[in-house]
């Protein structure tokens, strides 16, 4: 047996489940580990929040040491890397060569395999689509030990993009790169009052700004106000591509006590942020604009030992204004302050993934410190509002959605099921993926 590593938790550190974690340092190691039997699930950087990256009673195959480049084709703007490579390492390598990743989430501390499995999205979804839109091919190891070469158009390609690691283990993948002429972004941060303000700014900005996102104050006193952030890459500043990235400023050294994020401190933080973070058009390092939280390592420890829950939903455009204000009202009434609430409108670029989360509409993401029953009750309430509005919840961030919303909001679920490899499973999948008649 491959020796087991110390236990693995998800980024939200809730729920904590007992499972075995083993390491595959080389592409050749993965088949050997799968041959040991049992239920397997790939693990990368461990950045999924809830239980979609957890496999209670089974095995997590940790590929984070498979972090090697395989090939680079500058003419075709394509790079091939092992699945355990961090997006950070790809992005930092690409920049001095005049390239960037076309679609990245708000952190770069995730692996290529994880980005595929969750079909992640970023602030430029309205112009670039999801991560999966830029995957050219990958090789997938199935539970029977066979390696399948997958390209767009293949059923297994479509099932694996956003497939939550349930179709096999991606060994290596070829990604499209986009040329970039500067390491800086022209950014602007505009205050708004109320959701109408947000929808107006989003409609104005999405035509001409590559990156758009807004922060929303969900505390009782400031409910509905926020800051709309938009940015576009600076053109013609090639000299700046050699600039080294801003280093991580600090790391959270220990688990904060639970009182640290009380409703009082959350309210104070949000009020302060609203006052200080607004700014007129300015030039900022791209990594600071795109990945602000990466400046603080291990920020999940701020939430203490009990961890935290994320809630991210998307609601169709016609329902969005009403549903968003209902969500906001429910949160304010609950008194469970969200430290950081983010709202963005998705575009209509379709992902190749069967189980991709992003779709046209408005997406809303919130963090709640885990305080027990009251927190879970609030999330159920938010889920009901989302379900009624015809929306979906993001599996990568979820630890408690019900099977009914999962079934109704992922219309390709039954088609996807046919591609799920019987050797693979996850706690999330056992919780919500069971066939409807069961």
């Amino acid at each position: 047996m491959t020796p087991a590593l110390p236990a693995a938790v998800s980024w939200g550190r809730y729920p904590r489940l007992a499972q075995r974690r083993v390491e595959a340092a080389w592409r050749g190691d993965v088949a050997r580990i799968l041959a040991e039997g049992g239920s397997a699930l790939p693990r990368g950087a461990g950045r999924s929040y809830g239980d979609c990256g957890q496999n209670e009673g089974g095995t997590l195959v940790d590929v984070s040491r498979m972090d090697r480049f395989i090939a680079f084709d500058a003419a075709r703007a394509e790079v091939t890397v092992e699945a355990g490579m961090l997006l950070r390492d790809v992005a930092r390598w690409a920049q001095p060569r005049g390239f960037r990743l076309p679609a990245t989430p708000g952190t770069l501390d995730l692996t290529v395999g994880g980005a595929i499995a969750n079909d992640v999205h970023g602030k430029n979804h309205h112009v670039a689509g999801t991560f999966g839109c830029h995957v050219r091919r990958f090789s997938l190891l199935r539970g029977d030990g066979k390696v399948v070469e997958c390209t767009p158009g293949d059923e297994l390609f479509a099932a694996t993009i956003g497939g939550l690691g349930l179709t096999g283990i991606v060994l290596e993948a070829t990604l499209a790169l986009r040329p970039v002429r500067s390491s800086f972004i022209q950014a602007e941060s505009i205050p708004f009052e109320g959701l109408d303000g947000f929808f107006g700014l989003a409609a104005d900005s999405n035509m001409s700004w590559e990156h758009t996102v807004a922060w929303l104050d969900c505390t009782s006193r400031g409910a509905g106000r926020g800051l709309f952030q938009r940015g576009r890459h600076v053109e013609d500043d090639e000299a700046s591509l050699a600039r080294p990235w801003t280093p991580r400023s600090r790391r959270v050294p220990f688990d904060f006590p639970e009182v640290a994020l009380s409703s009082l401190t959350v309210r104070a933080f949000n009020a302060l942020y609203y006052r200080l973070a607004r700014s007129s058009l300015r030039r900022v390092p791209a990594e600071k604009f795109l990945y602000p939280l990466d400046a603080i390592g291990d920020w999940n420890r701020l939430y203490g030992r009990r961890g935290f829950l994320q809630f991210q939903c998307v609601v169709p455009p016609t329902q969005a204004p009403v549903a968003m204000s209902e969500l906001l009202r429910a949160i304010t009434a609950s008194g469970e302050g969200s430290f950081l609430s983010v709202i963005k409108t998705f575009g209509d670029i379709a992902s190749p993934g069967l189980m991709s989360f992003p779709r046209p509409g408005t997406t809303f993401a919130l963090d709640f410190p885990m305080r027990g029953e009251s927190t879970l009750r609030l999330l159920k309430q938010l889920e009901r509002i989302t379900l009624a509005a015809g929306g979906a919840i993001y599996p990568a961030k979820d630890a408690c959605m019900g099977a009914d919303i999962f079934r109704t909001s992922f219309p390709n679920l039954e088609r996807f099921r046919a591609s799920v490899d019987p050797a693979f499973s996850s706690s999330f999948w056992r919780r919500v993926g069971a066939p409807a008649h069961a």
Partner: protein
Amino acid sequence: MSAAILFGATSSIGQATARLWAARGDRIYLVARDAAKLRAVADDLQVRGGQVVGTRVAALDEIDAQAAVVDEAFVAMGSVDVVLVAHGVLGDPARLRESPQDLAALLHVNFVSTATLAERIVAALERQGHGTLAVIGSVAGDRGRQSNYAYGSSKGGIDVFLAGMRHRLAQSPVRVVTIKPGLVDTPMTASFPKGGPLWSSPERVGECIDRAIRSGRGIAYVPRFWRAVMLIIRHLPAFLMHRTKL
């Protein structure tokens, strides 16, 4: 730009160090036992910007083959600035106590074959009249401890051997560096409980090794705080040492 040969190219510490060379565009020659893994490392370094001049599949514990491997590498490179020897095994202490064969094999890989390889490399460096040999030892070689004295003695043996070489070559332009990593988070230490301030990533250790090779020091603890830690452990009186589980 410089030219470097890496023996044990698939070790985590070796890879992490070579990635820094590659990012600077250095010329690199790689030797390892496993052809598929060697190929993966070579591709990686090439894409990172290195010029991989050549690769060689070789079992470095086969002493008779070492001279040919070293000669081939030097011929392929022309001139060599740095040679890093990073091959080695950790072994399971309980198993090593029971099996004389396993114990002998560990001492052979970590001490005997490393010493004979170091002699061949230094001879080649002396012939060209310059260059640095750096060998990965371990803090475990500084004092015999109950938890891993077989591994420790093999690393301690190589430490003494390299110190002697350094003495012999004191008036020569050829330099010999002993690298002493502490606890490093690699597949070799997969079964250890990790975390805490004593554990370092291979990337951090690679940076320290790269700096040590260029610094001119003879012995480099990586990261440097291990020098202080081992100073204490080396001087702990036996009656205290024997009460610990170190």
